């Protein structure tokens, strides 16, 4: 943040009084207009109408300070990939600025009865829809895959018909967890609380199962506390009050697990990023800093606390080539090279990084009819690299990046944890 000593003349101001009352002046002052964030922004690269993070963050912040200027609606074109955060050489908190601006825009500038608002709220509360869908998975899958329903979704809700809805699993992760009787290992010294999020519960429980088995192979007791959405899609759609409500539950439940001696782990990089960065940036809940300080991405945790690399160096799988995409939210946590590095040690596994471009889907962004084309343009470079790599399968930590990879190339996509389960658990 700013090195400037506080002047007596300056008093903090609530520039966005209706959001979370952030004062990000230090960040705006640190911006020296080098444009690195704009040149990193995947939306700005393909959408000429999008002004880019430099405008949306510090410049708009400065405008708001003098006059109560309305927030530009281009803030809804931001996909919340947060690449601008890791790009900025001065540490300007661009994503925090965007999240608060988007919250303010949605709260004050959007008609709550408009189609766009209602659709965005439905998309950002995917967990609620998925909860119902998971009760009758066969019926839900049949309904959602119907081209009639897809057309209706596009016309009435603005949800693109181009993408196939993800299938609901026959048995959710939590159902599997209950059925097996919970943790198979008890340990006072090695304990983790698994934040599974929506997708690995309702759609890809095999990722959650792989995670449990990998951690149990290192002797960990796994807890699965009650939880709600990490808030990532809510941040991306400006639904900050929904996100705060979910955060209240999550912080309370995860704090209880931390008191029981657990650290928090997540298999989705957007969930781990949300808990450790966006939560303390956007909410002032009691113990939220504690949750942030104890949250890890799952493989990151094992790299730090166990000799995961050493264990993998002595492992092998059936020969398989993977095209790996590092999600933007893995990049933001400094984890972009982790999966490639770990799989280098596995005999039979060959993983090629398909480059540093964004996948383009960014959670709910690519599901919006008016953003679908932009998301596919952003992803084009990744699709091209994947085709060139000619893998057996794709690989990524992010469930919606996996959707995009499959949608754009046709390859099946696995999570690194699934490959590591194959390597370590027999």
């Amino acid at each position: 943040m700013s090195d400037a000593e506080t002047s007596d003349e300056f008093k903090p101001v609530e520039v966005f009084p209706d959001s979370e009352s952030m004062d990000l002046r230090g960040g705006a002052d640190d911006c020296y207009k080098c444009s690195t964030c704009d040149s990193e922004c995947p939306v700005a690269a393909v959408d000429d109408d999008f002004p880019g993070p430099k405008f949306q963050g510090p410049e708009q912040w400065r405008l708001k300070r003098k006059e109560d200027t309305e927030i530009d609606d281009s803030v809804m074109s931001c996909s919340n990939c947060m690449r601008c955060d890791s790009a900025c050489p001065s540490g300007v908190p661009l994503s925090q600025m965007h999240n608060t601006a988007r919250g303010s825009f949605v709260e004050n500038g959007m008609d709550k009865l408009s189609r766009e608002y209602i659709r965005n709220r439905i998309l950002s509360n995917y967990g609620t829809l998925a909860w119902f869908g998971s009760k009758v998975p066969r019926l839900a899958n049949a309904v959602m895959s119907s081209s009639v329903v897809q057309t209706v979704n596009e016309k009435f809700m603005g949800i693109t018909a181009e993408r196939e809805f993800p299938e609901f699993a026959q048995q959710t992760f939590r159902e599997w967890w209950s059925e097996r009787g919970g943790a198979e290992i008890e340990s006072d010294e090695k304990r983790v609380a698994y934040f599974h999020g929506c997708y690995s519960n309702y759609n890809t429980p095999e990722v959650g199962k792989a995670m449990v088995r990998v951690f149990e192979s290192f002797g960990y007791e796994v807890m699965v506390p009650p939880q709600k959405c990490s808030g990532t899609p809510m941040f991306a759609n400006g639904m900050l009050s929904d996100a705060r409500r979910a955060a209240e539950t999550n912080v309370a439940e995860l704090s209880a697990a931390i008191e029981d001696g657990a650290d928090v782990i997540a298999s989705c990089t957007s969930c781990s990023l949300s808990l450790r960065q966006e939560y303390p940036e956007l909410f002032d809940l009691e113990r939220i800093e504690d949750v942030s300080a104890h949250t890890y991405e799952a493989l990151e945790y094992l790299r730090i606390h166990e000799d995961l690399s050493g264990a993998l160096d002595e492992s092998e799988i059936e020969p398989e080539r993977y095209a790996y995409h590092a999600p933007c939210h893995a990049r933001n946590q400094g984890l972009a090279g982790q999966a490639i590095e770990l799989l280098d040690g596995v005999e039979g596994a060959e993983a090629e990084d398909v480059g540093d471009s964004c996948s383009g889907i960014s959670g709910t962004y690519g599901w919006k009819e008016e953003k679908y084309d932009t998301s596919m343009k952003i992803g084009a470079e990744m699709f091209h690299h994947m085709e060139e790599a000619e893998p057996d399968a794709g690989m990524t930590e992010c469930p919606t990046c996996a959707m995009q990879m499959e949608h754009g190339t046709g390859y099946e996509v696995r999570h690194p944890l699934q490959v590591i389960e194959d390597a370590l658990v027999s």
Partner: protein
Amino acid sequence: MAIESDVLVIGGGLAGATAAIEAARGGASVRLVAHKENTLRNASGLIDVLGYNGGDEPLVEPFEAIADLPDEHPYRKVGVEAVRESLALFDEIAGDLYEGGHTETNALSPTYGGRVKPTGRYPKSAAAGLASRTEDTLLVGFEIVTSFDAPLAAERLDSSVPFDVRGVTIRFPGEFRADARITRLATALDADELRDREQRLGTREALAARVAEYLGDAERVGFPALLGDDEHQAVREALETELGVPVFEVPMGPPSLPGMRLEDRLYEELDAEGVRVESGNPVVGYTADDGRITAVSVDRGRREVPYHAEQFVLATGGLVGKGIDSSREGVSEPVFDCHVPQPEERYEWFHDRVFDDQPYARFGVSVDDGLRPLDSSGEPEFSNLRAAGAVLGGYDMAREKSASGVSLSTGLVAGQRANEDLQ
């Protein structure tokens, strides 16, 4: 357990990348951790070695002048042969992008401000524009690229070089918003989509057609550095074919396409050498034992993660790259708290006349001949730490035009010494 490697390089710019490549080539397992995107993408792309040494005239032969530099200058620490060796390494890595290795004479490259800058290596895309060549020149600016005023740059150049320089500002082909960024134009030239359906011209041909109207007697044409990203060579060749004269890029400020191309090349080389690169990882602390650093702490969102290594290289940059920090109380190196020589009295940090030889421009860590940072009594701070690049003090890179050469040569030596000292 721990995340560990033989050599840990802190900082991902030119010095850090060079140190990591050199250490990896020596057989070490190397990890490079960077806080943010490095500032290479903001750099002009020119690789300067030594442009000035106190006088108003640029140096013709940079290597010969190194012996005359003060003892504390980084070039004196590493020696002139290391400077040559580091440029040879650079030529090996980036030789298909860069020229200048054929001579030890500085080239003079026009800048977008209409001056000439002495440089040791320059992008191939800038080669046809060197001021040491004598062809009459047309500079082409675009209404949309406000940072390059071609008529103004041409007027300034024309008054200082022995050939004619004219400047013209035209519209870039296609529909772009008034403040479209330069990378957008580069992408349009890469894609070369139809812009004129009636005559079926792509962006490149449409651009050449507009420039041809102004070509006159000019024997070369310079553009702001936006002639393509991935396809920059093909773009330039297409324009040269259409115009019938050599085409060159004038190096620009941020965001800089030549800087991005150089960054891509360096990082491809890091990958090829097996260096583990992690960005988004600010180093915020360290542990030490008996004068040796044992690990550094990386900030991962309100928690510190230890990274262990045998040897460490500090390549965090200068003031702009945040490797040197300052407040009213003093100037400091924030990672290891290495000593930064400076006058105690703050008013002695600077002279009033802004373009004078400024003390603060030389602030940075002081090192021994092995590039180990020294404490205030002249002893190495740690036995297994080297410093490289802009974090070093003892020279004024802006005044003498030496930033890239210092980064390359000190990065090379830091990487070599780290590798040699592995137990």
